[in-house]
């Protein structure tokens, strides 16, 4: 790796690949500024250094974080994830969200939820939830309502099939504009899809063959560029239409 100047301006590193040990910011040069650090960065006295390999991202006005793709998920507040119900307790459901520990979904965290109409989730139910709190060392807290209190598509997902993928792929599937593989498939095949930022994707369609085609196409697009994805999806559609 070529040595970068230790007090380089952060703009040099934004959207670049960084590895643990890179120093991206020198605080001694900036005074009177508040900077927010997201995942993958830490502060060593005056230097902000990277502790996770990935791409450095910046969002206005002052938030930096490292985006990397792996199989495991690091729970983060305000993420929408797909969880699997593990167990039901009197106060909350234990939900597995592919993180270091199981998360809690309070029994009342549903739209119009009262003690009388607690939903019955059996072990193995797939649910689309939002991470409310994710503090280090604590089990994350989830909710099936959005910030305003509405249900907004959160809840149990029926039928369909769930696939596991990397966190990078799920971020790509959720990016806007729509990623090419979903766009190309969506033009010809009717299906519905729910993507969790924790590396889980749920696909549902009228017939199992469509679900399988869409699922496998998504899995395959992990390492392809946008153009390659489009080509792959189109070839797949041709083959499907021929049958």
């Amino acid at each position, binding site marked *: 790796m070529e040595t970068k100047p230790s007090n380089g301006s952060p703009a040099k590193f934004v959207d670049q690949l960084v590895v643990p040990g890179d120093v991206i910011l020198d605080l001694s040069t900036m005074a009177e500024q508040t900077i927010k650090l997201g995942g993958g960065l830490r502060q060593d006295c005056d230097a902000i250094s990277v502790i*996770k390999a990935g791409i450095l991202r910046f969002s206005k006005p002052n938030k930096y974080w490292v985006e990397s793709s792996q199989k*495991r998920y690091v729970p983060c507040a305000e993420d929408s994830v797909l969880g699997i119900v593990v167990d039901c307790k009197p106060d909350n459901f234990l939900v597995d969200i592919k993180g*270091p520990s199981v998360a809690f979904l309070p029994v009342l965290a549903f739209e119009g939820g009262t003690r009388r109409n607690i939903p019955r989730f059996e072990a193995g139910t797939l649910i689309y939830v939002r991470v409310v709190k994710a503090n*280090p060392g604590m089990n994350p807290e989830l909710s099936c309502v959005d910030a305003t209190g509405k249900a907004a598509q959160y809840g149990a997902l029926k039928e369909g*099939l769930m696939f596991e993928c990397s966190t990078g792929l799920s971020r790509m599937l959720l990016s806007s504009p729509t990623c090419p593989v979903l766009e190309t498939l969506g033009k010809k095949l009717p299906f519905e899809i729910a993507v969790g930022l924790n590396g889980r994707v749920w696909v549902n369609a009228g017939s199992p063959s469509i679900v399988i085609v869409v699922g496998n196409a998504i899995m395959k697009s992990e390492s392809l560029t946008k153009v*390659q994805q489009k080509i792959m999806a189109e070839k797949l559609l041709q083959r499907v239409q021929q049958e």
Partner: protein
Amino acid sequence: RAHSSTEQDCCTTLVAASGSSTILPPFSVHRPAGTLRQLFRVSSSTFISTQLATFPTYPAFCAGASMDSRLANTWRLTVNEKKFIETALASDLRIDGRKPLEYRKLTINFGREDGSADVQLGHTHVMGFVSSQLVQPYRERPNEGTMSIFTEFSPMADPSFELGRPGESAIELGRIIDRGLRESRAVDMESLCVLAGKLVWAIRIDLHILDNGGNLVDAANVAALAALLTFRRPECSLGGENGQEVVVHPPEAKDPLPLIVHHLPIAVTFGFFSTEYTMVVDPTHSEEAVMGGRMTVTVNASGDICAIQKAGGVGVPQSEIMRCLRLASDKAESITKNIKDAVEAFNTERMLRKIKRHSTAVAANVSIENDVKGQKDKLAGQRVNESSMSQMERLKLKPDESSISQNDGLGSETRSSDQISSQRAEGNAPLFLGGPSSWDPHTHGVDPDFLKASLAAQGKSNPKAEQSSEDSDDDVAMQEKDASEDVKPPSLATDSSETVEEQKTSIVKKTLKDAVKPKNRRRKKTRS
């Protein structure tokens, strides 16, 4: 280990998330990793104990954290998946797009050492390794060698595998493979006897499960067979005062000998589901979780059934069982061919490695035969075993296949690197050579002049190899067994040179067009 990795992750979560809001005072950052972990353990268990009254608090201090991570790490089957797999099977569809009776792609690679093989069946990855040792034979069988199989279910393969005592499935896997090899007498035990009653060779097969993608039995069986076929044991002779001392020759002195494997018992696993009589071949991990019963049939390419294993599960009618047996023998044929091809490629590559330096491929091919004949010299004293004979014949056939179909390349290492590079991002990955050739300083950079010269020579070698598949060559090979061998190589060489002129022009075009890159690697191998 599954546990320690999650604790590591928890540490990074702690450190990373600590900076999620405004910049924190450095206290959380400057502790070394050990104490951070301690911190985490303390905090997690206290939090757990406050939020869940069910967890015992003080005594299960650390157990709280590990229990939680075990809870978080288990792979779970969703209700949706179970329902979907069964619905899809009703329309003959499987979630990875296969048909119910289709096998996944089988890839066999070999390591540098003799007797090590690694097999990939879809996502399932198993490594087999064969080693030998001189031991005392069993009292009831003083003339036979011994064979034992050891399996290791590494925790990296599956979160449910734990180090320590093997679980039920691990023992069952070992037993199925052992029964398939031992009961059917696939490996000749009597040839492993050195001194009757005193010293025999003990063959030990180690199987390491590296990744569990379903159907471990089949993959492990193929790994064991591939390793057995490429294993070479040291040659030993009797010496000493009264001919009772055994001298084990090192591989540099005398070429080690292959094992005598009479046939290849192939295991084929079937999965039965509770709906109707749905059956799949080669189940994946999710299908294994959903299926109601399984059966493994070990059969060889000639259709002899070596073993059948059905341990409980859904009841299956007799007609279905017979159907499974027929299917299994079909699959066994194709898998046997797959294994044999891979082993031949490896053997050819091994021969080429023995050759020091040759500028033309023709000379290389001729010296292959020389080398093989040299080995046969040693074998002449002992029983002529058919496997080495057929090996030599197939050796002649193999250069034919490998040079004609350039994409297969020579040697399994190139094949594996081909597959690796094709599996990676198309067009993104640099040319990955993989294997031992990449570290050898002499293999860097082939100069274009040499390449052109070698391409021309390549044209000569192809027709020579093509000709080898004709009957005349086989007859020559037969005669060589008995007659003096020195006469033969010149005649072979002259044969080849004749056909070279005829077929050179027609063949050269084909070789130049086909994949130049694999040829690149081939040149490097013969140089080193």
